């Protein structure tokens, strides 16, 4: 689990400090910086995945290309560096990783407070992982040496004995596990869903497009069943992938509970379609930290209310961490209801009210109480409602408005 993220000078995140829970929700107006949190995590993954590319390539997230360093820098200040730091626990050891990006170069930093170990590696991108930094540390009276290329490390004890060998092995696994954790971050963007009844089965890739997601569903024997299980929980629909023997084409099908016929997913409602895509990406075992953009899109509020139960079950059963951006009051209230009903601990949920002032994103962590309330209320969901209520209660009298289109004026009058 990623415990915290700090991002500086990235888009509108001048200095953002966030503490995550197993389920973390971001809500607030449009264009206030909610998605930037997910982009920041995606950039970290890109660097760990392949650092041997120019700096600007890190900002190409596949589902969206954010542009150049200058385009993503806070206030487009090319001279300032931006940074992305995360804290996590690997092998029960707290590890901190910090990426500093400058216009043409960068810095990879690792810190393990328990060992008082700090490693810092200045690099120039593209970086083919061919440099090393070395540092010594002392733990429980014994000396160790750590060598790190920014991604992979080797820790060796000064004197070899069983105890120090074990410490060195654990430290090595922790550092390397940290990079692995970052690799297991995935983002489910707003633009999602399947657009064809059948898909040719291809290599898995990073599940960044519908072809890769469909292929994963076709080749992973367990994934379609898991998707179907949660789809049924949320929408009373079953899902399956049909691959004819000897064929390399997969058909995505849905089946209404208690109905006799199946449908091609693409001919079912788009809410179902995007939800299958979202569940497939969420339940895919290759990723552990899932950043979900607005899971409620195309869904009726009645269905949205069922989402938290499914997300809680997924988090419980798979130990995945889920970060969610949302505009849905129904979703947030359903989460609070789950807290009140004791289905999830309040400590396992974090709510961030996201606002923007003078071009800077602010995250206000709203405390949740055991009885499912949230300090400060959820007034942000009522923005603009007063004006609407006023117009209902105090309608402007006078002339009939002009028809939008004269062709319709007679038929509809």
């Amino acid at each position: 689990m990623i415990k915290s993220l700090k991002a500086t000078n990235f888009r509108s995140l001048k200095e953002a400090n966030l503490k995550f829970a197993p389920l973390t929700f971001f809500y607030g107006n449009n264009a206030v910086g909610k998605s930037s949190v997910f982009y920041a995590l995606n950039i970290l993954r890109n660097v760990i995945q392949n650092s041997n590319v120019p700096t600007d390539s890190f900002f190409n997230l596949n589902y969206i290309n954010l542009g150049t360093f200058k385009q993503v820098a806070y206030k487009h200040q090319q001279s300032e560096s931006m940074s992305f730091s995360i804290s996590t626990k690997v092998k029960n050891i707290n590890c901190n990783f910090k990426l500093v990006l400058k216009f043409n170069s960068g810095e990879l930093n690792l810190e393990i407070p328990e060992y008082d170990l700090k490693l810092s590696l200045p690099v120039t991108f593209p970086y083919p992982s061919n440099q090393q930094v070395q540092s010594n540390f002392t733990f429980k009276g014994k000396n160790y040496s750590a060598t790190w290329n920014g991604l992979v490390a080797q820790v060796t004890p000064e004197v070899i004995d069983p105890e120090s060998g074990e410490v060195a092995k654990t430290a090595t696994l922790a550092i390397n596990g940290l990079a692995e954790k970052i690799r297991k971050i995935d983002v489910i963007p707003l633009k999602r869903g399947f657009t064809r009844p059948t898909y040719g089965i291809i290599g898995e890739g990073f599940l960044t497009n519908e072809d890769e997601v469909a292929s994963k569903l076709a080749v992973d024997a367990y994934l379609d069943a898991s998707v179907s299980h949660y789809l049924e929980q949320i929408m009373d629909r079953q899902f399956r992938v049909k691959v004819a023997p000897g064929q390399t084409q997969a058909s995505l099908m849905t089946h209404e509970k208690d109905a006799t016929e199946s449908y091609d997913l693409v001919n079912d409602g788009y809410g179902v379609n995007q939800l299958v895509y979202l569940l497939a990406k969420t339940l895919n075992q290759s990723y552990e930290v899932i950043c979900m953009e607005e899971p409620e899109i195309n869904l009726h509020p009645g269905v949205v209310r069922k989402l938290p139960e499914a997300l809680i079950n997924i988090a419980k059963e798979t130990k995945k961490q889920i970060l969610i951006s949302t505009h849905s009051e129904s979703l947030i209230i359903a989460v609070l209801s789950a807290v009140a009903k004791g289905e999830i601990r309040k400590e396992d949920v974090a709510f961030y009210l996201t606002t923007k002032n003078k071009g800077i994103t602010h995250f206000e962590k709203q405390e949740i109480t055991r009885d499912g309330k949230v300090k400060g209320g959820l007034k942000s969901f009522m923005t603009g409602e007063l004006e609407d209520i006023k117009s209902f209660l105090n309608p402007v009298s006078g002339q009939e408005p002009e028809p939008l289109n004269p062709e319709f004026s007679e038929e509809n009058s």
Partner: protein
Amino acid sequence: MLLIFDEWLYHDLLGGENRLGAVQFIFALSETKDQIIILKNSPFHKKWRELIDNSPLSDSPQKMIRGMLLTGFELDPDKIVYFEDSDIKNIKIPRKIKVKPDDAYLVKLALLKREAILITTDTPLFSGLKSIKVNVVMRDDFIKSYTVKKIT
């Protein structure tokens, strides 16, 4: 500031000529740190719950009012201070004022929380409470000054 309301708030939010003023007042109140005092299971509490639980979805303003009460008050643990019957059972109402049995809980709440302000439309209740130096304000005076002060 702690505020106690009698049932005019429910009636005003439900309809009538004071509805817009009541909505603007509730909106202004949600933006402040001021709190509402409610006695659980009191006539006011039952009507408050009715606004939240039974607002007809066909009435757009009522649906939005419900949303405001829910997101701005009910879901905020700091916005409503609830009391139980047991909290006020030993509070004695001075004999010099006459209070209708249905309003007794309001007076007792005001006596329990002397710093609170009771906002009412009941003139005899207003006069009676004034005479025993309880903070009481007539609805129209309070809403006008409060909404103007908080919104502008």
